[in-house]
């Protein structure tokens, strides 16, 4: 049995004598980035197991569907066989819906990756007091961070925030986007 490390969660952390608001801000931004990284790493493993379990289940369901198709004419005219075929069709549709839904994780991981990069960039930026006090440098920072956000939803949120929209407006826009996100578009050149 090992001893738990001594820690007092309620203790106030003493700042170093040479603390600065910029350094503390950067520290907290780095902390947020580290928490996100840990969460993504944990989720990667769970989602991987979940996807594997889903594909195995879907494979088994499809095998049942194939077996149902092989019923003899006599067998397939029974009420049970009709019901079995209906179930097979429902399963097939549910599998398709699940394939679309599973792709949420890829999008989530990508969006969190952009947030992590933004936090790290901002942490470095605020530490440089000369840079952080110049309007032009902030404008350059915003431009470079906007370039990072590549989906329309991300850019819409970024633009709303940088135009000074209220938090409720931004939240409403995010919810609206989420509700309208089904499968994406296809364009042949």
């Amino acid at each position: 049995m090992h001893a738990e490390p001594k820690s007092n969660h309620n203790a106030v952390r003493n700042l170093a004598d040479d603390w600065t608001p910029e350094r503390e801000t950067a520290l907290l931004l780095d902390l947020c980035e580290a928490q996100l990284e840990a969460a993504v790493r944990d989720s990667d493993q769970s989602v991987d197991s979940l996807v594997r379990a889903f594909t195995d289940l879907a494979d088994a369901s499809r095998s049942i569907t194939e077996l149902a198709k092989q019923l003899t004419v006599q067998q397939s005219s029974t009420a049970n066989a009709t019901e079995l075929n209906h179930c097979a069709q429902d399963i097939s549709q549910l599998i398709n819906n699940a394939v679309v839904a599973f792709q949420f994780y890829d999008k989530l991981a990508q969006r969190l990756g952009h947030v992590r990069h933004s936090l790290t960039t901002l942490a470095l930026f605020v530490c440089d007091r000369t840079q952080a006090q110049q309007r032009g440098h902030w404008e350059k920072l915003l431009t470079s961070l906007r370039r990072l956000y590549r989906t329309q939803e991300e850019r819409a949120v970024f633009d709303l925030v940088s135009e000074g929209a209220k938090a409720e407006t931004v939240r409403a826009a995010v919810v609206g986007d989420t509700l309208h996100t089904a499968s994406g578009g296809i364009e042949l050149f």
Partner: protein
Amino acid sequence: MPGIILAVDDSASMRQMVRFTLEHAGYEVVQATDGVEALDYAKTSGVDLVLADVNMPNMDGITLCKELRGLSHYKGIPILMLTTESAPETKSRGKQAGATGWIVKPFNPEQLLATIAKVL
């Protein structure tokens, strides 16, 4: 046999969803985790279609597309980009690089298969 598809994506869950969808439709699927790995494979082997993500480490999908078009045996092969990106300027870069089409994630399995069947 419908054909061999090279699926390129750095996300393991996306690769699994793509492989699952394509294999059930009868395609043989070869997977690569980024552009470099895909290009290495393509230099020595032929496929019937390439399905590639855009944002990947080491080599992105648009660069991969350009590089593949430089290989004699990939000049006429359909290359579909499968990505979360939908910005017109990025699509335009993909088109200039030689992509055959652009599919925005998340993909619908039936639509993906219909698109592949159309370009093959």
